[in-house]
């Protein structure tokens, strides 16, 4: 499902296995648990990399599980359940007291893309993998916190429109050009290497984690409000 390891100052959260890493309630709970652990064990100079094995970063909510409810009403209920369970995962990432990087080596679709987008930096493959919000194609609407995430994380209105209203399947080079990801590399190893490199460089700055989190929340005030994250005014006499 997912694992957490430590490598020096780095926390590495891995979605394991060759499958689509669908976010069903179990996986969502595991993610939340591990991220809470990261938060608890954070120190000055920590950083998080979220990565996945195989061809997929994540293909989003488990729609099969939703439909297995047997009725339309049941499916909607299960979908809502997953959306509600997922919200704290995003909230935890948004308030994580350290820089965060998503190392996207496979397809990041729907809630999978959302998870990636909740990180401070996105690094992606150029040669494989897409970012895709298929909701418009499958006639699903987005929960308010996901709309808020896209609004505040993606500054360019045309890009947001192309991703959400046009269901664009965005490859690495376009994502890099249009500012959706920080950088795109050819090859899985290159992405992982670049992510570790970035994480280490950011870690070296030895930022005060809680202040970092507060500044991050300040960048995304509407999203923070929707996620129920309060904003603390910090004054640290370090001068």
């Amino acid at each position: 499902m997912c694992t957490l390891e430590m490598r020096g100052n780095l926390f590495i959260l891995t979605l394991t296995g060759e499958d689509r890493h669908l976010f069903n309630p179990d996986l969502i709970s595991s993610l939340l648990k591990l991220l809470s652990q990261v938060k608890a064990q954070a120190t000055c100079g920590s950083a998080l990399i979220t990565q996945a094995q195989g061809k997929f970063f994540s293909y989003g909510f488990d729609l099969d599980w939703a439909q297995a409810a047997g009725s339309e009403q049941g499916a909607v209920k299960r979908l809502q359940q997953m959306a509600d369970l997922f919200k704290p995962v995003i909230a935890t990432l948004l308030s994580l007291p350290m820089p965060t990087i998503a190392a996207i080596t496979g397809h990041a679709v729907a809630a999978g893309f959302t998870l990636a987008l909740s990180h401070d930096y996105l690094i992606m493959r150029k040669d494989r993998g897409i970012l895709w919000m298929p909701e418009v194609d499958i006639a699903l609407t987005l929960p308010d916190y996901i709309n808020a995430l896209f609004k505040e994380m993606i500054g360019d209105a045309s890009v947001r429109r192309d991703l959400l209203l046009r269901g664009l399947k965005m490859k690495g080079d376009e994502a890099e050009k249009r500012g959706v990801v920080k950088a795109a590399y050819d090859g899985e190893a290159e992405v992982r290497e670049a992510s570790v490199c970035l994480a280490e460089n950011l870690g070296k700055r030895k930022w005060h984690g809680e202040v970092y989190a507060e500044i991050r929340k300040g960048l995304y005030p509407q999203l923070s409000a929707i996620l129920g994250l309060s904003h603390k005014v910090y004054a640290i006499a370090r001068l």
Partner: protein
Amino acid sequence: MCSLEKRGNLFILILTGQNGEHRLNPNLFSSIISALSRAKAESTRGSALVTVSHGKFFCNGFDLDWVNAAGSDEETQQRFNLLLDYLKQLVLAFISLPMPTIAAVNGHAAAGGVVLALCHDYVLMRRHRSVLYMIDLDLGIKIPEPFMALFRAKISGSARRDLLLRGLKIKGEEALKMGIVEAVYDGEEEVTNSGIEMADDLAKRNWHGEFYVEIRKGLYSELCDILGIASKAIATP
């Protein structure tokens, strides 16, 4: 005024009339809003709408001649406010239209005409002989909130400032670079045909109109809040 043509899955809204500037007065506003109601009523899965115009202008904004022809200062203000109200209704009508929308800007667009273009999901423009001009600053006219929200929703970064605060007459290539338009074309025929082509491509995605609207509303949530329209949350896959 305007006419609505149906071509297969496409609705083609054509700004017509002897008034070559296609200035927005109560008649043209009513005409457009009525056409949009018809398109909404007749919409199916895989519908799309493209708005086209002919001649030197796409739309040169409010009919200020009509506004100023009023008998008194008070009535002039009333007429202007009426046009603002109509423009707001126009924005509402476009946001609630259950299909992708494209504006094929064949000529100049100013003030309300720019708003009209930006009401669409996608804007195509002519490379030459066509400028987007928010003349409001130069005329000393404030831009009221729902339209400011539209600009905030659709245009990002320094482009927004350049469009609104700099009184620039923005030509095709510039508009493209600023991210205001998707593509530019040489010639009126080309931009019109490309608009129709793009509408066709989007129509082929066969989107469910009602969900398309909800996703659009979610995308432009601040604007919708200001306009007072709510969006529905999750629905069945």
